[in-house]
């Protein structure tokens, strides 16, 4: 049961060690340490990347923002550019865990942990963000939607790690919406969540993007609803169709937090509620 801990000082050192058997990346540890303690995981070599400068930057590159995987949620919440250009991310992160968790938890950790309830996945899906994966063979980019492969499963291959997330700056006309349903108001894992970016004029939907958490094996975009609604006027029948399509788009499970049935209904109703809101401003 030997367990080793190594604080890596460079990407090279990380890559060399990542190939070793039983090696695992440790960042904030807010998922990993919990799983180790409960015996779900027992890595032999922990590679602590939380202080790697290359992974701790938030950079504005033209029309995109690149966020290093080891940037903590608290740092994101304090970042000027994120506050200005990605208000949805701020809304979401301010509801993730609690202050103590956000001081340690990172964007990278939240994504690689790949929980169906990972809160930051919802805005990243809505932004059409990409992940940058680095391995000894080099770097590749992948849409966030293709990164999640199932509960706890990602597209990372052996020896690869998540270096950064690349977010195309959304049209500022898209207003953010996020509703996370939990059993209490803070420090709660989503029973279900709905996020949206919505650009309407009067009752005309110029563009809508919808994503949901905790209602499928991975966080998902609700494309069929989007396709039905984009460019349309909000009417009673559109709302009902959106409700139906949202219901059909999800595949939730029963668990200790709630039933599949509730999750299906509540996501459908939240989608309908979002469109109803357009009619009632």
């Amino acid at each position: 049961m030997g367990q080793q801990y190594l604080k890596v000082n460079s990407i090279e050192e990380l890559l060399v060690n990542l190939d070793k058997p039983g090696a695992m990346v440790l960042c904030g540890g807010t998922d990993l340490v919990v799983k180790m303690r409960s015996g779900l995981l027992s890595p032999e070599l922990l590679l602590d990347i939380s202080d790697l400068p290359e992974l701790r930057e938030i950079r504005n590159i033209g029309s995109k923002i690149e966020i290093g995987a080891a940037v903590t949620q608290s740092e994101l919440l304090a970042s000027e550019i994120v506050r200005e250009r990605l208000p949805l991310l701020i809304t979401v992160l301010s509801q993730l865990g609690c202050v103590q968790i956000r001081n340690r938890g990172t964007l990278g950790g939240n994504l690689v942990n790949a929980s169906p309830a990972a809160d930051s996945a919802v805005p990243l899906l809505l932004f059409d963000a990409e992940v940058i994966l680095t391995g000894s063979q080099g770097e590749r980019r992948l849409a966030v939607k293709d990164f999640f492969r199932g509960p706890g499963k990602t597209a990372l291959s052996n020896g690869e790690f998540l270096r950064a997330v690349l977010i195309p700056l959304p049209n500022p006309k898209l207003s953010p919406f996020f509703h996370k349903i939990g059993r209490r108001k803070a420090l709660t894992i989503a029973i279900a969540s709905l996020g949206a970016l919505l650009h309407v004029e009067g009752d005309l939907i110029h563009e809508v993007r919808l994503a949901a958490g905790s209602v499928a094996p991975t966080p998902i975009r609700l494309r069929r609803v989007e396709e039905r609604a984009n460019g349309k006027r909000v009417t009673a029948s559109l709302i009902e169709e959106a409700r139906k399509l949202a219901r059909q788009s999800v595949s939730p499970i029963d668990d200790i937090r709630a039933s599949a049935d509730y999750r299906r209904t509540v996501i459908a109703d939240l989608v309908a509620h979002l469109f109803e809101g357009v009619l009632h401003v």
Partner: protein
Amino acid sequence: MIGAAVLRPDAIDKVRGEARFVDDLAFPGMLHAAVIRGTVPHAKICKLDLKSVSKHPRVICTLTANEIPGENVVHVIYDDQPALADEIVRYIGEPIALLAAEDRTSANQAVKLATINYEELPAVFDSLSALSPDAPTVAVPAATEKAPNLFNAMRIRKGDVAQGFAQADVIVEGEYHTGYQEHAYLETQGAIAVPELNGAMAIYGTMQCPFYVQAAVAKVLGLPLSKVRVIQTATGGAFGGKEDVPSLVACLAALLAWKARRSVKLVFDREEDILTTSKRHPSIVRYKSGAKADGTLTAIEVDFVYNAGAYQTLSPAVLWRGLMHAAGPYRIPHVKIDGRSVATNTVPCGAFRGFGSPQVIFAHESQMDRLAERLGIDRLEIRRRNALQIGDETATKQRLSESVGVLQTIEKAGRLAHWEERLRKVEAFNAASRDRRRGLGISSVMYGVGLGGKAPFLDKAGAYMKLEADGSIGIAVGTVEMGQGLTTALTQIASEALSVPFDRIHLAPVDSSRVPDSGPTVASRGTMMSGLAILDAAAKLKERIRTVAKDLHIPKNEIPSRLKEIAQAFFMRNLDPAVEGWAQGAPVDWDEETGLGNAYFVYAYATHIAQVEVDLTTGEASVEDFVAVHDSGRIVNHQLASGQVEGGIAQGLGFALMEDIPQEDGRLMTTGFTTYRIPTIRDIAADTKVAFVEALYSAGPFGAKGLGEVPLMASHTAVSRAVAHALGAAVNTYPLSPERVKGSVA
């Protein structure tokens, strides 16, 4: 001094992290214990093989039931619970064997090396199934042939309910369900057993009832009581969870310490604590109420069943309090109440703040609202009309002669909440809102202070008090500080009684060898009973001080400022500077056959009003506003009392809205605070008003009664009724999760 907000004597140490909780303590050569537990709900133990456990290089010893030197029981009320399961395991998590190792990690590893073979027996998990005559027998001994698992059945018969319902213009009936509630104290259970010379055993631990622990450890070790000394360590919350369970924890540690002849520490981790220790009894309450057109109650008929778990522990006492509180703070001429507690193959339930009353309060207050609705009477008004007053008779035919403040709590709560205006505002909001509904809930409760007519022998308390040579005062009592502020309140009482400054008085940690058995620190009795014992001691000490002062020609009015001089005289002249105080509860009586009698010597009261807002789309309910008004007689420290109320509101809100432990075939499905949710600061109404009406009790210290449990009792139903009001729908089951609430949205 009485009523003042003083700095808690324990505040600084706790804030600085210097208070020593049980897990902070170590003794030379101390071992670490771990418990080998049953993994099936009901089974015969065919084989218990600890060879591999013993072979673990760090394990010092193991212990099984047949090695117990005294009796294999955890003494609480009935001796039905073994310290270690012998032939049969009756719930998942029941202790079967013990081990002690040089360190905790090894102890926890070694547990996994035990081999236990079972022959599984049919098991039963819910109280109604367990009541059927052909249910597997869980209770030891079987209760009756027809109902083997009927632990306790108790009743009240007053007047003639048939006649009462015949007089009623309206009758409403309802069935109410509540589930487990976990105490979620910050500090988990733990004890250290330290062998002392001459075969004696000392127990250090986190607890509410040092004298229960003393009795239990003496019994399991076969020692005289005088050879067991119990020292309470700084205790990080209890809420009833440290009433009976520490007896079990201490017994297990003591058995290993006895065998190893070394100190042994046993501390549960959170998962072990949640899964294997007591909780609030799940309940089913059927309630029928009748009232006249003007709202006057004529009769109630109540039948309630509590799931007790595999052993009795405190269930008879919990059930009795439920019985005594099922009618609420109202005048009701005809009363028929039946309560039953039932054995099942689940973790034994026990004491939890409110002690069997919150379940029936949910029912009685819901019924009041439904009567009001049917009769077209305002909900506050129907409570006002039926509220008990001095001279009235309770459901047990006790005539109330003093200190009945319930009506004042209702009226004051109504005023502080602007009840009628707020009702109109809520209606206006609801008329205008498409997707949100607000609601108001009101809940009034009464609480019998102290242990009452079922166990009057427990309502006593001692105090030891000495005048030190410098004029400062040392005190020892037998009730404990568990975070509630007892040390502060008692020091204030002593300070007032002796005219000695607050910071010149020190209360020693509770040690059972210092004072006589003072009963448990439960039933909201600490301030009152130990306060009375301190007053008794103070009167005796003052008498002696006066005699010496007279001798020294110190005039009476100069005694406080010249106490040091007087104390010096005690010292120089070899005078006895120590006294003992004693307090007994006023007489109570109760007849088992009719359920009638003077159940408690006095009652505390409260009325809470909550405003909630429900999101109709998601079913999320949030508490927006709260008013709590209490009558606990004289308030000894307003700040601490308000803190108690605020904490109780939070705990009740959790019970009503979010706290829940699903159980599948006897297995509890929440193992920690990720899945067992208690409220956070965000869930508590930003605007919470706490106020008191002080209906003084002549036999209490400076007129004080009890407070500790009452806030929780009142708050949960204020919240759940507010949700019901918001939805315009029945709310009969806790917790009101988003899913359940959405399911009720019409």
